[in-house]
């Protein structure tokens, strides 16, 4: 990741997001939300939020293209 402050903020956000996976407060809640049991709706929303987080990760830290390959011979090559 290129900018250090942004990296720290992102990593902190990632840690918090990981903790949010453990939704203890919905453990025994039988209510329905959006037509599904609330514990299921929450984790479905978690998947959508994870997708948004990954999109942000790609903006902050795009995968770098490596330099042209300087391929080295391996045992067995050219036999």
């Amino acid at each position, binding site marked *: 990741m290129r900018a250090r402050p942004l990296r720290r903020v992102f990593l902190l956000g990632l840690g918090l997001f990981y903790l949010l*996976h453990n939704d203890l407060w919905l453990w025994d809640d039988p209510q329905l939300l959006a037509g599904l049991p609330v514990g299921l709706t929450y984790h479905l929303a978690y998947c959508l939020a994870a997708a948004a987080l990954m999109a942000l990760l*790609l903006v902050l830290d795009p995968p770098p293209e490596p330099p042209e390959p300087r391929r080295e011979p391996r045992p067995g090559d050219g036999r």
Partner: protein
Amino acid sequence: MTVAVIAVYLALVLAIGAFSHRFLERTGEDYFVATRTIGPFVLLMSLFGTHMTAFSLLGASGEAYHRGIGVFALMASSSALVVPLVFHFVGARLWALGKRHGYLTQIQFFRDRWGSDGLGLVLFALILALLLPYLLIGIKGAGITLNQITDGLVPEAAGSLIICLVVLAYVATGGLRGTAWANTFQTLVFMILGALAVAIIVGRSGGLAAALARVAAARPELLVRGDAIRPLELLSYTAIPLSVGMFPHIFMHWLTARGAATFRLPVAAYPLCVAVVWLPSVLLGVIGAADVPGLEGPAANAVLIRMIALHAPEILAGLLAAGVIAAVMSSLDSQILALSSLFTEDIVRHYRLHDRMGEARQVRVGRLWVAALLAVTYLLALVVDRSIFRLGVWSFTGFAGLFPLVVAALYWRRSTRQGALAAVLATAVLWLWFFVRSWQEPGYTVGGTGLMPVVVILAGSAAALVAGSLLSPRPATSLVDRFFDR
């Protein structure tokens, strides 16, 4: 009619394999990594299709049948976070190193990274052992699907055999390009048909509200996590998707990428794909508990197919079953190809056995090796009667235990071959020990706390790696500099 639909589907997949054969160049790099030319969409579909298997459809619905909606949190939403991060921080970097050094297999990378043939051999044996239960759930899942959807007309053993032969045929003809294309087709099939299955089944049984009301009346505990899942279990399950970093078949697909930017789509879209596949599986498993009661233990592996057979008309049932078979085959093919490349590249070529063989004999030996492994797994599938979900979790647990290895290889210059070897051995010993415990006591968790063994194995492996590295001499700079930019 159902059988005819499935037969047409299998013929289609074979045709894709045969068609891709026309593009096959006669080189190992083309056969095993499609000359690193795969674009973002095919990479996403082949990675996702390879990762999702009988585990995600039959296993997830079977587990949800017994344990309820919490199964989605255990594996789906945790994978939605962990897997794309592994693709980004591990996969893209491995792809760059693979391109730079011309790697075709995972073992080549680890052997080169630490300059140790011994490590390569030990890792080869362990990966093979861990992959067997993973292959087993695919073969078993295929048999269950064909057996249930044909109302027993096709015996489980015959169903498993048919799918093994079809997969072997298109992998042998099309190599990785054929596998990637077939995977893309099959992933689209099982994603679309999975969503369609839940819509049709729920629609025909009175709507979602009515279906959930039936569950609330018959098995209300399935609509919450309650006592079926413990908090520590949910927390420790998040370590299991780390396994994706060490799957040889996923590694092989990473190497096929056209460029680093090719990884962007798989990283961003993976969480959405997980939700699309797992939501129908878990929902149908939970609703199945009300609609098809009385499935004990591993019999619940078949609940998804029983629901399709119960609620969908014949042609549609065939199509939906084809979707399940698609998920099974799209993993089996890559696993078979990975096993073939590991053997051909890391044993036959690396130890120069090919000097003593002609080209035709090498190909024959490679195919015999894969056929022998499949035969062993097939025989095991006939006698092992366990939950697909649990078998899958055991395979993933072992691969997750090896995760510190790939992290150290990519990010820790000071790591040494002694440390790497210690981590592999620690994983093997701990995995075996916990596996035996769990076999004797299904549902085993560490000390009965809910803590999954994966956490202990991961910690043991990481500790062995760090201790082994720090207690051994620093690796040669010339070796390390090949893998790290100064």
